[in-house]
């Protein structure tokens, strides 16, 4: 089975790159998008299965919320984690995301990794694998 694939949607290169490298070193295949629009390009391309989308709430136009809604509608097997500062709308994120509350920024890489492991493990349990 191939490594799980994580798509990180984050505008800030200085934030995105270290997180992506950390997750790669943990064994994940990581794709990087600087906007929700670029993330849609990956998701619609369909050449690889994306297991988790980790998206910043403020990811340009469309927003992270809009991206999450699109994923929930079109790719129900792909899980979404929204991330943002406390000032962002956590309640709305909870309606959209698999696991309710979002990750807060700035990212704690270890917490992101724990969250990803938790989501993948829950999915595998639900799939009976």
């Amino acid at each position, binding site marked *: 089975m191939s490594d799980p694939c994580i798509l990180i949607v984050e505008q800030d*290169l*200085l934030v995105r*790159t*270290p997180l*992506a*490298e*950390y997750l*790669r*070193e*943990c*064994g*994940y295949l990581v*794709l*990087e*998008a*600087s906007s929700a629009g*670029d993330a849609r*390009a*990956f998701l619609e*391309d369909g050449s690889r299965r994306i297991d988790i989308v980790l998206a910043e709430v403020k990811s340009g136009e469309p927003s992270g919320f809009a991206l999450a809604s699109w994923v929930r509608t079109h790719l129900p097997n792909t899980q979404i984690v929204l991330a943002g500062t406390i000032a962002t709308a956590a309640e709305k994120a909870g309606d959209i995301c698999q696991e309710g509350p979002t990750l807060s920024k700035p990212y704690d890489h270890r917490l992101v990794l724990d969250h990803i*492991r938790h989501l993948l493990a829950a999915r595998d349990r639900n799939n009976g694998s």
Partner: protein
Amino acid sequence: MIPQPLLRPRTARILVVEDEVLTRAFIAEELRLAGFRVIEADRADDGLTYIKAAVEQVDLVFSDIQTPGSLDGLQLAEILRDKYPDIPVILTSGNAPPRHVGIVEAFVPKPYDVTQTIALMSAILAQKSPGEPL
């Protein structure tokens, strides 16, 4: 088995500046498979910000000429030549190379052969730091 971060010796870091996300992801993935570390930027401005921030040393820049933002790839190359002359630059474009593209180490026309392009990068890095592992 739970994946854990691995400790590895330092490998060369390549900054790829390309605004077409699928193209960028493809070359970045091939470079990683070839053993390089890759920073992915969709704008030349962001690439320059990364280099200025000196988060980690960048060993080579591979940039499209036509990039969104306040800088294009050629302007980025000019800045790097002045401020960071140790960082070699390879430019790429689907258009004909501009006349003063000679300021950079190489120009690769699009569509490029990924294997040959990576070989070119390896050769430039080897020339820059002979004897050091890539």
